[in-house]
C-alpha cells in the first residue's frame, strides 16, 4: 500500500486531503467530525481581528449551477470570514489540535493591511499550537470592499509587504492564498515568494453571478431584491485552477515553491491531477459541502490504488510529475498526427459527433443512411471535438499515424522528427532569421 502521508512545508498529515478555509472548518464541532471522517488536515475558516466580529447577510448566501440530474457543478457564495468571536475560535482551535496532534491544523487569517494588526494576531494563533497560517488574500466579496482579501491579493506589492510582516513575526509556516481574479497568477505568486512565503495556495473563488431571477430582475442569491457578486467554486472552476497551479509550478523563478492546490477537487482523480501539476497537497470545500465529510474515504482509497498501480511509494513521488510536460503552444509537435476513430461496437448512433463536426468543424464525419458514422481521414484535423461530445466513454478515440504513413488530409507522409512553430517556415520569425 502506498504511503499517503504528506509533509507540506513541514506540516505533516496522514493524507494530502485538507479541508479548505470555508464554512466546513468554521467551528470545533465540524472539524472534529471531519477528522473522525478521515481528513488529513484543515485550514480553519478565516479569523479576523479582535473585537466585534463581522456579520453575514440573513438571506441566502449561496447560489449554484447544476448539470444533468441536478448534479452540483458550481457554487457561489457571499459569506464573509468567520462571524464568531476571535477568542472562541482560538479556544476551539487549541482544543481540536490538542486532541488530533497527527492532523494538520492551519489557521486562515485576514486582518487590515497594517503591520500592527498582523503582529497582534499572530502570537494568539501561535499559542493555540496550530501548525501554520494561511493568509487570505483571495476572498473576492465583501471583505474586498473593506480593503482586505482579494483587494490585497490583486496588488503584488501589498502581498509581498504583508507576507514579510508575517514571516518576521512568527515561527509558523506561512501559506499565501491567492485570488484568481487577476490577469497573470505568477505576479502575486512571485510577490508572495519574494516576501518569504513558505507556500502558496490557490485558487480562491472567482467573481461570479450564478444566475438572474427573471421575475425580480436581480442576481441570485437575491437579498431583498438586490444581489452582489460572489465567489465561484466547485468542479466548474477546476480547469482554471489547474492552469494557475501549472503556471506557478513551471515558472523558473518559483521552482520548488510548495503549492497547495484548491479548486473543484471532488474525487481522488482531481487531487492526483493537481498533485501531478505540482501541488504538494489539495484543499477541498465544495465537494464536502455537497456530499458531506465522508467523501474523503473515496479520495483516500482511490489515490492509494492509483499510486499502487503506478508503482509509486508515496504522494511525494507523484507531486510535480506532469510539470516537465507543461509547455507553450509554440513547442507542440506539429508532426504528431492523429485521426479520430469510432468504435462501431460501442457507437449508439446518436449522431452528436456528426452534428458537431458537420455544423461547426471540418465536415470530417460521414453518416450513412442507416446511421453508421465514420471518419473521413482526408478531412479530419484531429480536433477532438467528436471525442468530447460523444456520450459513450472511449467510443471515439484519437489514433496516432505512424511515421511515414501518408496523412490523407495533407497528402504528406508523417515526419519522424519533432517539428514545431519555432522552426516552421510560415513563422515570420523563422523567415526573418533565414534572410
Amino acid at each position: 500500500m502506498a504511503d499517503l502521508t504528506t509533509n507540506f512545508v513541514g506540516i505533516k498529515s496522514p493524507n494530502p486531503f485538507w479541508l479548505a478555509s470555508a464554512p466546513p472548518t468554521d467551528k470545533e464541532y465540524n472539524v472534529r467530525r471531519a477528522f473522525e471522517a478521515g481528513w488529513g488536515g484543515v485550514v480553519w475558516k478565516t479569523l479576523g481581528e479582535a473585537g466585534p466580529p463581522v456579520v453575514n447577510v440573513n438571506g441566502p448566501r449561496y447560489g449554484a449551477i447544476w448539470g444533468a440530474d441536478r448534479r452540483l457543478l458550481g457554487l457561489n457564495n457571499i459569506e464573509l470570514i468567520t462571524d464568531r468571536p476571535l477568542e472562541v475560535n482560538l479556544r476551539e482551535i487549541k482544543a481540536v489540535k490538542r486532541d488530533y496532534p497527527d492532523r494538520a491544523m492551519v489557521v486562515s487569517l485576514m486582518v487590515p493591511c497594517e503591520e500592527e494588526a498582523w503582529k497582534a494576531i499572530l502570537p494568539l494563533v501561535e499559542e493555540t499550537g496550530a501548525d501554520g497560517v494561511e493568509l487570505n488574500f483571495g476572498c473576492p466579496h465583501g471583505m474586498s470592499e473593506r480593503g482586505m482579501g482579494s483587494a490585497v491579493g490583486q496588488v503584488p506589492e501589498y502581498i509581498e509587504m504583508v507576507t514579510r510582516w508575517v514571516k518576521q513575526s512568527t515561527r509558523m509556516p506561512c501559506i499565501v492564498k491567492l485570488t484568481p481574479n487577476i490577469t497573470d497568477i505568477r505576479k502575486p505568486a512571485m510577490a508572495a515568494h519574494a516576501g518569504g512565503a513558505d507556500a502558496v495556495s490557490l485558487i480562491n473563488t472567482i467573481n461570479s453571478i450564478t444566475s438572474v431571477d427573471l421575475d425580480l430582475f436581480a442576481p441570485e442569491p437575491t437579498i431583498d431584491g438586490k444581489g452582489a457578486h460572489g465567489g465561484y467554486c466547485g468542479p466548474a472552476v477546476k480547469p482554471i485552477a489547474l492552469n494557475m497551479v501549472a503556471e506557478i509550478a513551471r515558472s523558473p523563478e518559483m521552482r520548488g515553491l510548495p503549492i497547495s492546490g484548491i479548486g473543484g477537487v471532488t474525487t481522488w482523480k482531481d487531487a492526483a491531477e493537481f498533485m501531478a501539476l505540482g501541488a504538494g497537497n489539495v484543499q477541498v470545500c465544495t465537494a464536502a459541502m455537497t456530499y458531506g465529510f465522508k467523501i474523503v474515504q473515496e479520495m483516500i482509497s482511490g489515490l492509494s490504488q492509483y499510486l499502487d498501480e503506478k508503482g509509486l511509494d508515496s504522494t511525494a513521488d507523484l507531486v510535480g510529475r506532469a510539470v516537465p510536460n507543461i509547455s507553450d503552444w509554440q513547442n507542440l509537435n506539429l508532426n504528431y498526427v492523429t485521426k479520430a476513430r469510432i468504435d462501431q461496437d460501442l457507437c449508439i448512433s446518436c449522431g452528436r459527433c456528426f452534428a458537431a463536426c458537420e455544423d461547426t468543424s471540418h465536415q470530417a464525419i460521414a453518416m450513412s443512411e442507416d446511421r453508421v458514422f465514420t471518419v473521413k481521414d482526408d478531412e479530419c484535423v484531429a480536433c477532438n471535438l467528436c471525442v468530447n461530445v460523444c456520450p459513450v466513454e472511449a467510443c471515439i478515440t484519437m489514433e496516432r499515424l505512424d511515421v511515414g504513413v501518408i496523412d490523407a488530409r495533407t497528402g504528406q507522409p508523417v515526419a519522424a522528427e519533432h517539428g514545431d512553430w519555432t522552426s516552421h517556415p510560415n513563422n515570420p520569425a523563422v523567415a526573418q532569421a533565414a534572410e
Partner: protein
Amino acid sequence: MDARALKEGVVPGRLDADALNAGFVDLHAPLTDHEALVAADRCYFCHDAPCITACPTDIDIPLFIRQIATGTPEAAAKTILTQNIMGGMCARVCPTETLCEEACVREAAEGEPVQIGRLQRYATDTLMAQGVHPFSRAASTGKRIAVVGAGPAGLACAHRLAMHGHDVVVFDARSKAGGLNEYGIAAYKSTEDFAAREVDWLLQIGGIQIRNNMALGRDVTLSALQGEYDAVFLGMGLGGVNALTAPGAEKEGVLDAVGFIADLRQATDLSALPVGRDVVVIGGGMTAVDAAVQSKLLGALNVTIVYRRGRDRMNASVWEQDLAAAKGVRIITNASPVAVHGNGAVREIEFEFTDDELAPTGQTFRLAADQVFKAIGQTLSGEDLPNLDGRKIAVSGPGRTSVQGVWAGGDCAAGGEDLTVTAVAEGRDAAEDIHAALMRA
C-alpha cells in the same frame, strides 16, 4: 409446438439445447463499463443512507458506488467484501427489490432505484476476475474452530475467523461446499459455476480446511467437536423438508422442490433432466418460484404455483412473482392441497379454496399434474442440538446458543430472514464474537 412439448409424463429433452441455453442465461446480465458508469452516476451519496440500513450486512453502498464512478471498481469491491465476503453471490441472489433498492431514495423520487445489485456485481466481478483476494490473515492465534456447514453462514464465519488468525475446519454434509449457493438457488442466478468459483476465491485467505461428506449427527457429533475445538459454529442450514399431509402425497412424481433445484444445479446436461408436462408447485416462497420458473425453462407446458394464503403473504417478492408470471407460470392463491390423485404416479392434485384465515370454503378444483413440487418450508434436522426457539436453534446476540462455546447462524438459527445475505451477516458477526471470546480467555 412439437410433440416433445406435449408429451405426457416426466421426461427429459422437452426443449432443444439452444432453447435451454437461452432460458438459463444470467437473469441480470453483467453491466458493461458504460452501463456501470451511467448507473453509478445516479447515486446521490445520501447521508446515513437508507440503502445501508436496508442491507443485512451493512455494506457502505454509496461509497462503493462512488468508487465505481471514479474508476476504482477494485476499491469498490473491497468496500463490499469487507462487510460481506459473499458480496458476489449476494449481488446475484439478493432480493434487492425488498432490501437496498426498495430503500433507495430514487425509488421514492422516480420509482426507479439505483441498480445497486448490478453495480455490486460489477465491482466484485472486476476484482475476482483479476484473481485478487484483498484480505490477509493476522498472526496465528493457535486457536482451532469447527464450523458445521459450508454454506453462506459457515463460510462467512470461517473467513472472518481465518482473517483473525484462527485455524478453521469446516464440516459439510455434501460433496461440494457452498450450501444453498451451490445446491439451492435457481441456475439463472448463479451462472458459469459462480458459487464454486466464489468458494475457491474465498478460501484463498488460507487457514480454512473443508471436510466434505461429513454430516453432523452422522459422521461427527457436536460433543466431539466441542472436545476437539476451541469453539464451534453451527451453520448447517435446514436439512429437512416439511411433509405434505394430503392423502396420496406419497405417490410417484411428488417431490421436494429443493431436491429438484439441487439436481438441476448439479446437472451437466440440462437436456437429460426430466420434467413433467403439467407441473404444480405448492408454496409461496423463493423456492417455489425457483422451482416453477426452472420447470418452465426446462420445457414444462403448464406450470402452476399454488399458495394457501393471499398474494400479499407470499414470501417471494413481488418482483419474483412477476418474474414467474413473465415466464408463463400461473399463480393461484388461497388454495390448499387436499388430495393427490393417480394410480401409482400422480395424475391430478386437488385443492380447496381457503379464506384469509385458512378456513376451508368447500370449493375444490383439480389440476392436471405429472409432477408436484413441495416448497412448503424446510426444517431443522439433527439431535443433541442446543436449545431451540420454535423449530430453530435459539440464539442471543451474535449467534450465542444455549451451550457455552457453541454459536449458530444462518437458516438453522432463529431470527432473521432466510436469505443468503442474512446468513453471511450472522456468520460474520458470530465470528467476531467467537474471536472476542477466545481472545478474552
